[in-house]
């Protein structure tokens, strides 16, 4: 009965179009051309921009981000994304890549959270700096195996919290993430909905993000994607780079650990 409710609603969540878990010929066709498109991906333009921003002296403190510690030591960018989200002692919390970059922009460069949270998502006139920075950092983990750590108690806690949030039904539609992404073989129109509770499909939550979205030609990160999922479920808006979203990202990333991250992707 809940199944009928899910299928009947048009504005359901689609986290990401992905390789079909069944042999859906339309999805297979999309994947074939998606691979061609990813060879020359406009996301690379944002990667280049992100690297410039990483090195540029900016903000009230007129400092660059080159001393930012992404978990592997100050300034070490290569491979850092593949090991996130992770716990950071200086913030005493688990952070995903965007939360960490925002943290560094605040502590090293002097930016304020309110400024960065005001309009954090790309639109036709502007791509916010954290989006390009996330694209640059993520690209430096291209081809590496995901290894989001579960060593620190807060990392394990974030996983369990994320799992609980993923399955928590709320909002006007009585949806949870699991309504669309917790069962096999769900689909919205031409896009299959992967089951993120299973490792071999959880990779599809991470792979391809941050992603250049063909619709509108916009660069988007997982912070955007999660915000949009919440909107589609008619949930209250989640806090930008909040612990809630880091927990959700910990849950799906840890589920996908061991699998290869292919770098920024291209999305519908």
């Amino acid at each position, binding site marked *: 009965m809940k199944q009928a409710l899910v299928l009947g609603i048009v504005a359901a969540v689609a986290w990401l179009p992905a390789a079909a878990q069944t042999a859906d010929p339309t999805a297979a066709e999309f994947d074939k051309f998606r691979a061609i498109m990813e060879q*020359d*991906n*406009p996301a*690379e*333009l944002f990667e280049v921009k992100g690297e410039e921003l990483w090195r540029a002296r900016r903000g009230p403190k007129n400092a660059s981000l080159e001393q930012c510690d992404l978990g592997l030591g100050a300034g070490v960018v290569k491979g850092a994304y593949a090991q996130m989200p992770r716990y950071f002692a200086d913030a005493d919390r688990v952070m995903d890549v965007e939360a960490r970059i925002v943290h560094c922009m605040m502590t090293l460069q002097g930016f304020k959270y309110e400024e960065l949270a005001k309009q954090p998502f790309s*639109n*036709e006139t502007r791509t916010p700096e954290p989006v390009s920075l996330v694209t640059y950092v993520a690209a430096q983990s291209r081809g590496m195996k995901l290894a989001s750590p579960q060593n620190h108690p807060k990392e394990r806690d974030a996983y369990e919290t994320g799992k609980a949030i993923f399955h928590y039904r709320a909002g006007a539609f009585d949806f949870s993430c699991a309504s669309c992404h917790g069962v096999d073989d769900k689909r919205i129109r031409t896009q299959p909905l992967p089951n993120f509770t299973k490792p071999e499909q959880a990779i599809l939550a991470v792979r391809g993000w941050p992603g*250049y979205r*063909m619709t509108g*030609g916009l660069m988007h990160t997982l912070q955007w994607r999660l915000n949009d999922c919440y909107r589609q479920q008619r949930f209250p808006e989640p806090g930008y780079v909040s612990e809630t979203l880091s927990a959700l990202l910990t849950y799906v990333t840890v589920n996908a650990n061991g699998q290869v991250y292919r770098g920024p992707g291209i999305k519908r």
Partner: protein
Amino acid sequence: MADPMKIRATVQGDVADVRVLMAHPMETGQRKDAAGKIVPLHFIQTITAQLNGKTVFNADVSQAVSRNPVFAFKVKGAKAGDKLSITWQDNKGDKRADEVVIGAGS
């Protein structure tokens, strides 16, 4: 000042495989912005590629080309170390030129 292109050029035998990614909105003049106003026509019209200073490929295109265009073409008589430059010009007269050194193919 227009944003830089990303050019990849590698040679297989004596043919250079060239792939270019351009940063450009390619507005069709039919799209409305968030406020409901038409966004004016703004798109790349001409593209020229030169191998060591000599034109080897050129194109005239329309606003139907996708935003942040990607093109690929193949140039004869190229070798690793040659210079490949690409220039584009748009309907507002804005231009951009970028150059790469052709790399050896795998």
